């Protein structure tokens, strides 16, 4: 969960998506933007992200990030 404080908004990329945050597992992000907007800013190809969680709940990529959210993202890996 949010490791800094409950007002900080955090992005937590899982696994290979960390290459887009220079290997950092928790980065502070701005609220009041959609997940897709965030991907665009960070250069994360939206099409390789399979799952977005906001505070442990699955949300769509059009979800508008709120202050204090803990956003986790996971890529599609290798399939069945």
């Amino acid at each position, binding site marked *: 969960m949010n490791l800094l404080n409950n007002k900080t908004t955090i992005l937590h990329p*899982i*696994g*290979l998506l960390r290459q887009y945050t220079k290997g950092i597992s928790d980065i502070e992000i701005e609220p009041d933007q959609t997940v897709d907007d965030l991907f665009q800013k960070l250069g994360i*190809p939206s*099409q*390789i*992200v*399979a*799952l977005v*969680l906001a505070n442990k709940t*699955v949300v769509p*990529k059009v979800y508008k990030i709120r202050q204090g959210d803990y956003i986790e993202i*996971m*890529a*599609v*890996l*290798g*399939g*069945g």
Partner: protein
Amino acid sequence: MDGYGGSILRVNLTNQSFTKTPTPEEMARNYIGGRGFGAYLLYKELKKGVNPLDPENKVIISSGPISGLMIPGAGKMDWTTKSPLTGGYASASLGGMLTAELKYAGIDTIIVEGASIKPVYLFIENNTIELKDAADLWGKGTFECEKMLKERHGEEFQIAVIGPAGENGVLYAHVNHDFGRQAGRGGVGTVLGAKRLKAIVIRGTKSIPVADLEAYKKSGMSLYKACKDAEGLKPWQTYGTTIVVSWCDEVGALPTRNFSAGSFEGGKTLYGPVMREQIVVTDKGCFGCPSPCGKYSYMKRYDTRVEGPEYETIGMLGSNLGLPDIQDVAEANRLCDDLGIDTISTGGVISWAIECFQRGILTTDDTDGLILKYGDPNIVFSLIRKIAGKEGFGALLALGTKKASQKIGKGSDRYAIQVKGMEQSAYATHNATAMLLAYMTCDVGAHHNRAWAITYDLAVGRDKVVPEKVAKVIWFQNFRPMFDVLGACRLQWVELSIERDLYCPALEAITGVNRSWKDLEKVGARIWNLTRLFWIRENEGFDRKWDMPARRFYEDAPESGTTKGQITKPEDVQKLLDMYYEQRGWDTNGIPKKETLIELGLGEFVE
């Protein structure tokens, strides 16, 4: 031999006889186990040109050196035969508990040959091997049959059964195990049905020798720790393979109405979180699994239960048939499992029939009066029952899309979404050239699991046709099926990002043979080329036409969804094949060159 059960059991159903011979060390060295044993034994032992449903065909059931040991995912085994659906090589992977029990009985491989006059089942308890009368089991659904055998022999026995579809000769009948795991593709259950072998019941209590016990414990624990620490574990365990439904819908890969599109307007109600909330009761894993992807579901509307549906089934029986309700899809899944048919081929066959009906190629005169349309669960249930029983219109659909379209003609082959006679699994490939090539060249027909390359398409550019993309597909094909050779599940590596090099010390500790992934990939290439030789030997005139995809993917651009208007160029399809053959060391017709075979250690098969 360290890591192995130690013997090959040959069951001749014609003579009702058994022979047991030591597992050959040379075969273990060159083909390792599982799928490798299956491919080698099939090519060596099967007489050229055997009809898949004749007694001369064989079913080869093999565990691998990792099967049954304390290694994550060690619950896999391979079922190989000459496919009645495709006429070529069939290899179906089965998860669950059976592979462990087989090895504990001291057996690596069962070769089933001949055919019994009356229905029987194979009973194995360590050194006791018998064929028992199956008259009371014949005609039963897979769930009831497995339950009867558990009650008869005990909960500790592991059981694989065929359903009525296998008995009736539906060409894509499967083998069901543990009430919800299948050796699903290519008609393995059909061949067993033709042999009148209803079930296999196994219990073993022997030890498996390992070369270095301490190193085995250490390397096994390293793998378990990596799984436990994986950040993806929680979401993977929560959703299993359904994690990709929403993603496929988003990127245009979700098969929709006979693959006419890759996004489904009703898709959202099929997504993993919806399924989890609405029908999933609990998780279910295979032997030794730290990340159970199986989901056990209860469908309130039908008051029924099923293990599933997994992604492939949601795609093929859901969006592909225009069904947006997860309970309907799960019920269709249950019917297929119980009656004994592959959900992927079944979904492909039904969607083909609906499209043919809508285009006027089929009429109510052909369909027993049924008005075929997308989005009607009752039509789907009815067709599944008709297929399994080969009743009326179901007898045509029981042939699979390739043979059914050849039978009715009228241009219906255009709507058969298949390669080499096998219905394409659940990834729409209108504009995903690596995944398209993976389907075109897969060694069993249009199946996804050898080279799941669709994310690579998205990462490097979906319509790009470059040598690097082709090389990636070949690398996948050599590497990923090695898990089926080792008798392990690939999903820990795939979905939890477990470092694949962690498997090498475990394999060495178990077998005493040091192998790097480079060594293993060479074995993978050897097996790949051997299965290609099988296709060539068994099919007169086999050439590059056999590798062509369904025309839909280079002629009919989707009219809706993410991939609307997108299509692979016909010339790019040929270019993909040219590059693939060159990189494989095959000629322009897709025939392996002599030097390629010799380099891969297949000199004995050079003619």
